[in-house]
């Protein structure tokens, strides 16, 4: 069976006052049916833009998809008309956004925001749609769903709002859900609840999932495969286990060290990734992580390391020294 989603050499650019920004610079990855894939990276790494590009939700101007293919269920989404694309959005691919406060419309009831998707894609009448909305709210674990349906977003807590977003995304039984930092705006205790909910629902309903996050800790628990993005490119890809236990890119290693852990003795402070993300308008021909990399050598300035296979099958890293890295790390530790 071909993968549900195959992104090939996707390029998305923004024309800004400061120059051309290649926010997504040739990323390729696949998502199998029912699989959860994580895309990890810092702010500005292009992970959200890459995900919004799949649904062609990049505002144009200033943004534009300039190259690559997005094969979803055998169709290239880039070749579809706007009307055909609307059919895909919300029906085959659901989206969960970062800020449940601002991502729900403040002047529409919860019911309306769920039923309108059903009316649009399934031609459901008001009554059927409302029954389904009630069912969905129950499914995402909202207590007293009858009352909640009549309420407005501001009357719900952050966690409940995100549950509503999930209900909206699931309304038409999509094949894929794209969750863009679904827990970043929530309390830590709520974060775990939301992630568990998404995990159990996607598993139960057989929905594939792309989780976009900057938290590698989230990844290990909820994703089977991981793509690490830096400056618009994928710098490391592999199974969650491989990435977590055997990272082969200095950026991934730095990210892992920056995750606070409760199972280890408390250190004086966290180890953030040193330096700032690069200015995407002035990238040179070398490795874009080079200025922040402890392992940089002369070669890194001359050419961009290609994404190449390392030890395990399916594990890729874009680092000239990926083979040495595991040894270096052992020495350092």
């Amino acid at each position, binding site marked *: 069976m071909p993968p549900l989603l195959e992104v090939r050499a996707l390029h998305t650019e923004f024309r800004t006052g400061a120059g051309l920004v290649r926010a997504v610079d040739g990323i390729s990855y696949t998502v199998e049916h029912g699989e959860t894939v994580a895309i990890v990276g810092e702010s500005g790494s292009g992970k959200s833009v890459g995900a919004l590009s799949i649904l062609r939700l990049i505002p144009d101007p200033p943004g534009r998809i300039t190259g690559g293919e997005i094969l979803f269920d055998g169709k290239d989404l880039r070749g579809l008309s706007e009307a055909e694309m609307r059919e895909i*959005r919300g029906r085959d691919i659901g989206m969960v956004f970062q800020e449940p406060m*601002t*991502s729900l419309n403040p*002047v*529409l009831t919860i019911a309306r925001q769920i039923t*309108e998707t059903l009316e649009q894609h399934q031609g459901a009448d008001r009554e059927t749609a409302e029954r389904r909305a009630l069912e969905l709210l129950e499914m995402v674990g909202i207590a007293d769903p009858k009352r909640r349906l009549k309420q*407005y977003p*501001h009357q719900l807590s952050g966690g409940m709002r995100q549950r509503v977003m999930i209900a*909206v995304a699931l309304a038409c039984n999509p094949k894929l859900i794209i969750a863009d930092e679904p827990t970043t705006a929530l309390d830590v205790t709520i974060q775990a609840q939301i992630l568990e909910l998404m995990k159990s629902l996607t598993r139960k309903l057989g929905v594939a999932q792309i989780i976009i996050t900057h938290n590698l800790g989230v990844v290990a628990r909820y994703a089977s495969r991981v793509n690490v993005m830096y400056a618009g490119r994928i710098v490391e890809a592999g199974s969650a286990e491989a990435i977590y236990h055997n990272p082969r890119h200095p950026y991934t290693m730095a990210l892992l060290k920056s995750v606070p852990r409760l199972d280890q003795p408390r250190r004086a402070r966290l180890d953030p990734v040193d330096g700032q993300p690069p200015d995407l308008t002035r990238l040179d021909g070398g490795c874009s992580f080079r200025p922040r990399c402890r392992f940089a050598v002369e070669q890194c300035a001359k050419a961009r390391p290609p994404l190449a296979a390392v030890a395990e099958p399916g594990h890729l890293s874009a680092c000239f020294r990926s083979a040495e890295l595991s040894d270096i790390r052992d020495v350092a530790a």
Partner: protein
Amino acid sequence: MYRYIVKRLLLAVPTLVGAAALVFVLMRLIPGDVCVIRLGSGGAHVDPASVEACRQELGLNNPLIVQFLDFLWSYFTFDFGTSMWSGQPVTHEIAARLPVSLQIAVMATVIAVAIAIPLGTISALRENTWLDHVVRMVAIAGIATPSFWLGIMSLVLVLDITYLATGKAWMPPIQYVSFWQDPIHNLSMVLLPAITVGYRYSAVTMRMTRSAMLEVMREDYIRTARSKGLLEQIIINRHALKNALLPVVTLIGIEFAFLIGGLVVTEQVFNLNGIGRLFVQAVQNQDNVLTQALVMLVVVIFVVTNLVVDLLYAWLDPRIRFS
């Protein structure tokens, strides 16, 4: 809900008293008084004794504090007094002038809203296209053109066209007749001023609609609506417009309240006997009682309009309704 309305109306009492004090003081700061103007208007010799008698009769010789308290007390008893100039009850004076002003204000508002909201929305959605530029140019012209000039030009145009077409120049009638009595007569009189005023009004509203729409279209919930695959029309009507109308409603309310008493120049140009003109006459004649009544009327209109705007707000925005 009713409690809220009653509360708001009670809170308006201090506003009314404040406005009363202000107009009372201002009228008395103007040198001279109604008696000097009335008895000396023919340029004839003014007899000091008759001026004094007139002042005595109108109560202008009473201490200011007594005059002020009289004024306030009479309003609490809904006795608004008689004009110092004509001797007519001010309620009669105002009742004769209010319909035309009210009709023009309502018609101008309807015209403005009907033009401004669709055009402002289209302009925002087609930002920086030729359509947007044309709409914005028309809007800027509307704000920059003085309404008296526009009024004179439109009258001249009507004169010219009717002259060329029929050989006889036609002018709008001067005598106000209510719409129900003679709709054609009524409309031929008020349509032109209503369009003139409505154009400027729509220009302001259009710009506000455009900028509010532009802002709303960048909101996260619009992106969410897009991600649901909704039709663009539904996104605009259901998701964007309802949010964008909030600031526009405020503007419409303020403009409407202003129109009722503020069309001084337009009424002059079109020779209409409205509230604006009555206002000027009352001040020129130093008719304290009538001026005070008119100011209080305008304040009441503002208070009521603001209340209506707030209720509309609550209707549009559940965050206000439920807090």
